[in-house]
């Protein structure tokens, strides 16, 4: 093949500029630690890298949600924990006030303590989160959920439950309204509530009872009316829901358990003629009302000791229900907190593996790049040296 002079120059400069371009690209890759300088370097990896980046962003959002959830859950848990402690102390105080040997003055001192607790309870139920929102108001987090009206506490929040996505597809409830925890508590033993007639004159007291046969429950309210004739105490049972008599002249043994429509309870002491006791299905009451009822029983000096005992018994039973309700809510919060703890470590390792994957897609393999750099250097030097040598050999240089 005939080689013209321009071919020698074109070829030489072309191969030098190619080698230089390759060298420049490797340099750019090494200085930016990016394998792909633009999507065209590896279009498939570029598109995958975008998706992996989004995956990391989504996982980070979930991590944010996890810490927000932990934050809210632990605040609610701590508020409910204090509430539970408070209710326990209040229950102890109620029981101690039941003591028949106490004077009304002693009881008034207990009442004063309990009234302080009543205020504390309201404050706890109105707890706020770090940002100033009420913890137990549902969606209405800027409305004070529990307000003391005349005689009763009203709930101004709602039943909205806020959830956060703490893991893919897992929406965790992190805050809910306080109605369920503080306002809708079954009174009595949770199925039925007992009570003594406020005009009772005898020494009979009634306990809170228990369910002996769930299948026999009727959901009706009953009244036990006592009569005493000739030293014999008997009672009649009336179904006050239907207004019909259930049984009459039942023999009464103090302290013996009475079974009525699957409900078992005990009347102790000696009821007087005309005394009455009620057994009615549980209804919803607020924890505030329950405490207020107990305080009312202790502070009312005109009550007979037996009526007071029955009323305090009922209030204590109510307080146990309230404690159960709060424990249940705390258990729910606690198990969510545990779940978040587990999810947090899962998310952390997910982010790590996603970052590794992103690194594999986009980061430069320095060892390979360094080898490539020296190869390209050699190629450039070779091109330059050959160019120098070839262009020097010209016939004119031999002609004098």
């Amino acid at each position: 093949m005939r080689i013209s002079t321009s071919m020698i120059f074109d070829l030489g400069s072309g191969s030098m500029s190619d080698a230089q371009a390759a060298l420049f690209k490797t340099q750019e890759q090494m200085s930016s630690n990016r394998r792909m300088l633009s999507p065209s370097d590896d279009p498939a990896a570029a598109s995958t890298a975008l998706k992996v980046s989004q995956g990391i962003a989504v996982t980070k959002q979930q991590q944010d949600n996890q810490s927000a959830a932990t934050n809210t859950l632990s605040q609610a848990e701590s508020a409910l924990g204090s509430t539970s402690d408070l209710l326990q102390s209040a229950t102890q105080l109620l029981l101690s006030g039941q003591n028949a040997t106490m004077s009304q003055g002693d009881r008034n001192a207990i009442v004063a303590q309990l009234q302080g607790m009543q205020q504390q309870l309201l404050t706890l139920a109105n707890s706020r989160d770090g940002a100033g929102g009420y913890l137990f108001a549902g969606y209405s987090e800027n409305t004070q959920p529990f307000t003391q009206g005349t005689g009763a506490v009203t709930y101004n929040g709602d039943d909205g439950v806020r959830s956060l996505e703490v893991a893919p597809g897992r929406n965790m409830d992190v805050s809910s309204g306080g109605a369920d925890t503080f306002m809708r508590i079954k009174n009595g033993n949770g199925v039925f509530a007992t009570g003594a007639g406020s005009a009772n004159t005898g020494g009979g007291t009634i306990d809170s009872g228990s369910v002996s046969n769930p299948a026999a429950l009727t959901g009706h309210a009953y009244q036990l009316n006592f009569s005493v004739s000739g030293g014999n105490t008997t009672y009649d049972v009336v179904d006050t829901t239907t207004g019909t008599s259930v049984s009459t002249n039942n023999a009464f043994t103090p302290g013996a358990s009475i079974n009525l429509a699957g409900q078992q309870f005990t009347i102790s002491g000696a009821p007087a003629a005309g005394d009455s006791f009620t057994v009615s299905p549980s209804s919803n009451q607020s924890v505030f009302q329950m405490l207020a009822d107990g305080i009312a029983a202790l502070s009312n000096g005109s009550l007979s000791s037996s009526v007071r005992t029955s009323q305090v018994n009922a209030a204590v039973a109510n307080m146990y229900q309230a404690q159960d309700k709060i424990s249940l809510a705390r258990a729910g919060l606690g198990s969510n907190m545990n779940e978040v703890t587990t999810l947090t470590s899962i998310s952390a390792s997910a982010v790590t593996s996603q970052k590794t994957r992103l690194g594999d897609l986009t980061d430069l393999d320095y060892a390979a790049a360094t080898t490539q750099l020296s190869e390209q250097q050699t190629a450039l030097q070779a091109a330059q040296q050959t160019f120098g040598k070839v262009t020097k050999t010209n016939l004119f240089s031999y002609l004098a």
Partner: protein
Amino acid sequence: MSILSIGVSGLNAAQAGISTTSHNISNVNTPGYSRQQTVQTTNTPLFSGGGYFGQGVNVASVQRAYDSFLVAQTREAQTQSTQLDGLSAQLKNIDNLMADPSAGVSPMLDNLFSAFNTVSASPSDPASRQGLISAAQTLASGFSNLSSQLASFGDQANASVTQAVSTMNTDSAQLAQLNQQITVATAGGQQPNDLLDQRDALLQDMSKQARISVVNSPDGSVNVFLGNGQPLVLGSQQNQLTAGPDPSDPSQTIVGITSGGKFQAFNSADVTGGAIGAAFAFRQTLQQTQNGLGRIAASLAQSINAQQEVGQDLNGNPGTDFFSAAGPQVLGSTNNTGSATVGASVSNYAALTASDYKLAYDGTNYTVTRLSDNTQQSFASMPQTVDGVTISLSGTPAAGDSFLIEPTRNAASTFKSLLTDPNQVAAAFPVRAGSGTSNGGTGAAQVTAVTPPANANVSQPVNIVFTGPNTFNITGTGTGNPTGLTYTPGMTISYNGWTATLSGAPASGDSFNVGPNTGGSGDNSNIKALANLQLAKTMGGGTASFSDAYATMVSNVGNQTAAAISGASAQQTVLTNATSAQQSLSGVSLDEEAANLLKYQQAYQAASKVISTADTMFQSILQVISAG
């Protein structure tokens, strides 16, 4: 006597050789130059009784080392190479724009949805709401920044067409002139080598602008045609090209001629190769990218607006539009003669493609062509919906009228964030569920979804009353008040645009109510629904999320750029080979010329010796005569 003239003829031939060699050496770096050589022939011999005696040498002509096939091959390789080089250089602009993984639309989308998520963790916190407003504005400026850069690439492509047309016109004017000179020069019977080389160089330069075809005429001139036989140069006559607006889309500069004061566009598909071909090919990817970006912007705006509108803001009002983006654009061809106007609107965002469409009327039928793959659909009447775009027509079209429909071209450039007040973020549902205060069971009701479109009755009070543990009635406006519905735990019920979940074990007589979410500032339900749009498959017929669509667009640009780069490098090799073959024949070799120089120098010295010998012989005779 004859020895002297033979010597002189040798002297002349050697001098012509040296002269030609010098010319070659001088033009070693002249582009398009073909090396020349003298063609020597013997003079007609003289007959004498003793036979034919040679009469020396004469120079018949000066020829260039030339092969028209090799030159045509180089020209074709050049036109393709310039196109692919230009295409890959322009595509690299888009490619580099998408290159930075931390600055593109993708991280901005991630930031927007992270901001939605932050609001969901504390829905009434003004700081997180402000963060969302800022993220939305950043995204909007990201879209507009990216689209204005893309638009500037379009302007560059237009400018490169105009530039190429102007170069083409200058070249063709010179070529027409050269044609004339060559015709005159050739009439004498000899080839004007240097003029021919100049003309080849011009043709080579023209082929860098666009693919041309060259036809030789018997008179030595060449005729040059562009594309589909449009004459640029006929002999000594030049036809001026004009760069002008595409009749179907005036924002695109294309090639044509001006005739009778009116711009007549050539069919763009007929003009290929060179810088013009590169600009035309680049536009397809550019427009696909602009449309692809617009499609994401349009779908994002629509999905977020729709969810925002069914929500309730912090002021208790229904949500208002979060973003705005321009709808489809319709351009009637400037060649249309009918009175019809065409409108287009998006009726199904999930079905949108990144393509443009052409609506053509042939006097009977309407044909809608999807320009990305030339799929055609024919209709007897309008309006019609194609790929989620409803095309309507009013007025009367004439046969041959056409309209260009660009469903998403301007959506990204016009994308705006409308919310300025953080309170306007509709984080809550307008409706919430609650339980009756005297409920004895453990049942609970929760509104889990409010789905677009907005329902006028959404906040109407609705009561759900259990008449037994497993049956319930529903009353309220817009519900149809069904009775005796069967309850299963965890079931959902949907009325008035909301969906609620009933769970737990309600007791007979328990009631649940669904009603206005008054004061529900802590509700994050709607902002969660908005945040969930991040991964929702809202595009490509329900197969792609926003970032999927963006990733596809990026890999599409990457693939096309990579293909153009490797095509350009392959074509570079073809061009190098063709040039080498042509240069191998026509290029000047200084070594060769050095040898020729020696050769002719020696011939010249030898011929001088012949003259000196003849002189000596003549002197001898003169001496004899004068001595006698």
